[in-house]
């Protein structure tokens, strides 16, 4: 509609800030997210910057099935992220609980009970390229014409 919106769309598609939160996984997915930083995958060439600060994040990567300590805190972190925001579930754990959703477990999956999830990347763990692909494909959908959608 407006030129301003077009500029905003163009800028936002090349500047995505990512925070990741581990809510109780085997940290296999964790290190696959870290592996995206490696020069081989080079997450920063797409304008994605990974740092763990929810206050300036656009995308929250949620890893793991939810442990007792995170039941109340996950929502707090989600509330701290400024709009527009999106949460992506990485791995099987946030979707179904993976191997931990058995009798005797302390976890309480899925993550969707606590915060809205926009995209899911199944896998135990997913490959870095799949994580990268998910972030790149979900972020523009949410941010495109964000201000106009609000009206």
């Amino acid at each position: 509609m407006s030129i301003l919106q077009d500029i905003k769309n163009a800028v936002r598609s090349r500047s995505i800030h990512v925070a990741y939160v581990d809510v109780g996984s085997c940290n296999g997915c964790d290190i696959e997210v870290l592996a995206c930083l490696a020069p081989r995958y080079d997450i920063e060439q797409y304008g994605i910057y990974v740092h763990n600060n929810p206050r300036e994040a656009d995308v929250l990567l949620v890893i793991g099935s939810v442990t007792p300590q995170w039941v109340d805190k996950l929502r707090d972190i989600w509330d701290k992220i400024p709009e527009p925001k999106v949460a992506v579930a990485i791995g099987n754990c946030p979707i179904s609980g993976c191997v931990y959703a058995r009798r005797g477990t302390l976890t309480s999956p899925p993550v969707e009970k606590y915060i809205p999830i926009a995209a899911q990347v199944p896998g135990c763990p997913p490959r870095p390229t799949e994580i990268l692909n998910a972030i790149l494909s979900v972020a523009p959908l949410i941010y495109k014409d964000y201000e106009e959608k609000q009206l």
Partner: protein
Amino acid sequence: MKKSVDVSIPLGPMHPCWKEPVRLKCETAGERVLKTEMELGYMKKGIERIMRGRPWQEVMFLAERVCGICSVIHNMVFIETMEEISDIAVPPRAAYLRVVVNELDRMASHLIANFSYCYTIEHETLAMYLLNTREIVLDNLERITGSRINTAYMIPGGVRFDLLPEDAAAMLADLVKVEEEMKRYVRIFETGPLIALRSKGIGFMSHEEAIRAHTVGPTARASGVEDSDLRLRHPTYRALGFTQITRTEGDNFARNMVRFQEVFQSIDLIRKCIETLPEGPIRGGGLCKAGETSYAGEAPRGELTYTIKTDEYGRVVDIAIRTPSIMNIEACAHTMIKGATSIADVTSTFISSDPCVACNER
């Protein structure tokens, strides 16, 4: 814990430097840390409770998912415990292939540990170099086992896949590349004046304190604890002529250097394995029986113990896992960080002990 000072600085659970959530409450006077208290429970999944009453075929996959970074050794120690309970012999070729895969996993784990340390002290160039080298190691792991992280390579009585000659050749070529790169990175780390300022003499742990907290692995070896590597007792490693690396400084620099040196040692061990790889079958077969035993192996972070009790169908009745990170994180929080002169050193000291919270809480 009773509050003795007025300033209490909490770090975590979400912190830019930490890969996994954990909360450290540092009680400080000015910048000096007087006491630390650790709050866990962010990763407690109750994996030992899930394992009880399940057949070993399931527990094998659960054991891997205790920790994603060192999943191969969890698999290996669990399988070797089951073999010890049921008297299953391993064919020599399979035993050597286990060592190859385990050492590749150890290299990947040490590289990511040193990556996190360099990232924490903001030496991003070296951190990225190390992360890229780790990808080469993971490529080889994937070529042999078919997966990057959770491999499920070992089973009672052998391994799943054979090592093809062309894969071995490709791995040896890759290892030459890794060794050359690593020599350069270690030189950067050893001689860098800024790295020395952030690492040397910081986070000191004495030999007695290392013993008191029962620290294991590179953390203990950096404090000069002799005979703290269980690979010295493993029959296959003994056949390969393994010797332990020990340093005496006991600071952040020593812990990272021990890990760097162990990467070179792993490369040598893999080469020796490929050279002397015996011919023969890779799977012997066997039946899992009833029994109870405790068995330990050397994980990248130190001694890993599984205590398992099984029934006659091979089901796990009771299991207790003691992972190396429990001791190392505890020693780090209560002795290394205590007396740190700056809050900035708390994060780097904590990362230098290679904390793996998923292991620690299971």
